[in-house]
């Protein structure tokens, strides 16, 4: 049964057509107009020797001095080495500013904590942020981690969400709907395992499809990034030093989470996979309810896209604010959940945004899974 359901999903030609274009886009999208400098030349290695690691007052002073020199024209910056050095000096200076901002924030919070009454919600929020920031261990500095930037390029920007969700939609909308359009639903419902086990098997096949797809696309991205950067150095750098990628506004410099890049990657990767499964379950549910793959396709597509549109046209105020934070596309962008300190008031206690959204979607997905069984079992045969 399981292999038959997998066969039904994996033998659709349309999936392969779209997959082909996805991989083509992943390759050319970045190749023709690269979003960022690769920084994999030898000169950066040398610069890293001198400037790498967490910033110190000494490094900042030196960097500012160098920058001053080149600005005043005393040093001609024509060669590649000079330009690279100038870039690194700039990055060190920026890291210094971020370090100062972090320290300032910790001081401000200490000040707030002194004023607030210790039982209030505001106090809890401030103390939570304060203790998280306290635990950060000199996160700002110059690190060579551009290759990891590339690895996150498949997780955080909208394109990764679009690629994954499109393929999920295409592969999974027909899982239940096709049994109705091909008029096999009546036959299946009348068999021994046609009401319960068939549903479990279909869900398992769907998850298999998502898994294969997910691993494949991440692997393809890994290969492309390897080709571009020639390695994955910087795996143990703090996430706060991850530079902005394709969209400049995505930066972790103010993130309160004290992880190394590799830990952060594994976490984001896992969350994104969960998000894909959650979305897959939604698609299956709509496929059972609407009994038509095209309608299921557009409704799930709309559920994914509308929060994004609300954000785009600046409607994210009031109740819409929750819609634009708690939705499938935010969950799929996994890494961006950890961009900054963000809590929600749950019964008077501040709960961090990432565990909250995960919890909500875990519950939602369980309910949807139950509803799939329920709907399939108690449906009446029509036509």
């Amino acid at each position, binding site marked *: 049964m399981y292999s038959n359901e997998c066969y039904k999903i994996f033998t*659709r030609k349309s999936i392969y057509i779209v997959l082909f274009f996805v991989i083509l886009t992943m390759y050319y*999208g970045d190749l023709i107009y690269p*979003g960022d400098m690769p920084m994999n030349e030898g000169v950066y290695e040398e610069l890293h020797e001198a400037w790498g690691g967490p910033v110190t007052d000494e490094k900042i002073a030196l960097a500012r001095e160098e920058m001053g020199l080149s600005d005043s024209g005393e040093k001609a910056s024509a060669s590649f080495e000079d330009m690279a050095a100038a870039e690194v000096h700039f990055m060190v200076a920026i890291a210094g500013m971020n370090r100062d901002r972090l320290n300032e924030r910790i001081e401000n919070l200490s000040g707030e904590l002194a004023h607030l009454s210790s039982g209030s919600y505001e106090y809890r929020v401030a103390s939570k942020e304060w203790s998280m920031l306290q635990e950060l261990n000199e996160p700002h500095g110059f690190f060579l981690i551009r290759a990891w930037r590339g690895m996150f390029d498949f997780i955080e920007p909208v394109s990764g969400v679009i690629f994954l969700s*499109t393929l999920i*939609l295409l592969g999974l909308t027909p899982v239940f709907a096709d049994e109705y359009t091909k008029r096999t639903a009546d036959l299946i419902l009348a068999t021994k395992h046609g009401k319960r086990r068939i549903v479990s098997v279909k869900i398992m096949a769907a998850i298999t499809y998502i898994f294969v797809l997910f691993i494949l696309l991440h692997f393809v991205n890994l290969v492309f990034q390897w080709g571009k950067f020639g390695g994955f150095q910087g795996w143990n750098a703090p996430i706060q030093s991850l530079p902005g990628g394709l969209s400049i506004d995505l930066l972790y410099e103010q993130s309160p989470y004290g992880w190394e890049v590799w830990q952060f990657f594994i976490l984001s990767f896992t969350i994104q996979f969960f998000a894909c499964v959650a979305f897959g379950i939604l698609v299956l549910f709509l496929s059972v309810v609407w009994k038509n*793959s*095209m309608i299921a*396709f557009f409704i799930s597509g709309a559920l994914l896209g509308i929060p994004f549109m609300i954000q785009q*046209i*600046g409607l994210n105020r009031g109740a819409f604010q929750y819609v634009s934070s708690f939705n499938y596309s935010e969950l799929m962008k996994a890494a961006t959940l950890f961009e900054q300190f963000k809590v929600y008031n749950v019964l008077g206690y501040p709960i961090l945004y990432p565990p909250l959204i995960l919890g909500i979607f875990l519950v939602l997905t369980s309910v949807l899974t139950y509803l799939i069984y329920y709907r399939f079992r108690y449906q009446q045969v029509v036509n």
Partner: protein
Amino acid sequence: MTLLERFIQIVKRSTEEVSVVSKSYWITSMVLFLVGYFLTNYGAYNPLFTLVLLAPIPFIFGLLEVFKGREQGLLEMEMACKFSAHEIILARLFLVGMYNITLNSLLAVSFVPLVDSTTIWEMFLIWFTPFTIFAALALALSMRFRGTVFVTTFFSLWLIFIGLLLNHHAWTAHFFNANTVMYFLLMGVGMLLLAIQVRMLIRKYSTYEEGRTLEANY
């Protein structure tokens, strides 16, 4: 019959086909464009982007109407009529294409006050160029896949293209500011592909043997 006479006949036929195309199609397409108009007017969208985004959508849904006979199993009966299946398909294709182009042109005109750097003529090139290429792609897919599969597959490809424009600002900038010659070149390619697809379509739906073949595993 000359090509022109045939064309005139198809155009005449298309007026008869208006009644077959479902009302919901006309209305949905129009509503989609109205929504696009309002969102662009009140949101922070680039009007050119809205235009490109919406351009091929009525055509895609329209193809469902074009191939309605095939989807609902009337192909064989229609083939044996005086106006044969491929002529019916061409007539509806003409109808849907004209409707799509009209909607796009109206939207482009309504955006004139919103864009100052781009002339209406350039706006036409910007939406029409991807439209021709994607219309050709849509036709190619629709001849091979059953209706619902075709629509979902095409929309997937369309989403990827939109994702590319959304994400890679460099791509978008290049796309919206390309050389006019480049547009004409791409448009030429698009038109050529479209012509090839239409020719294949005529051949395919002239005989039952070709016409009934659709991918079994989509």
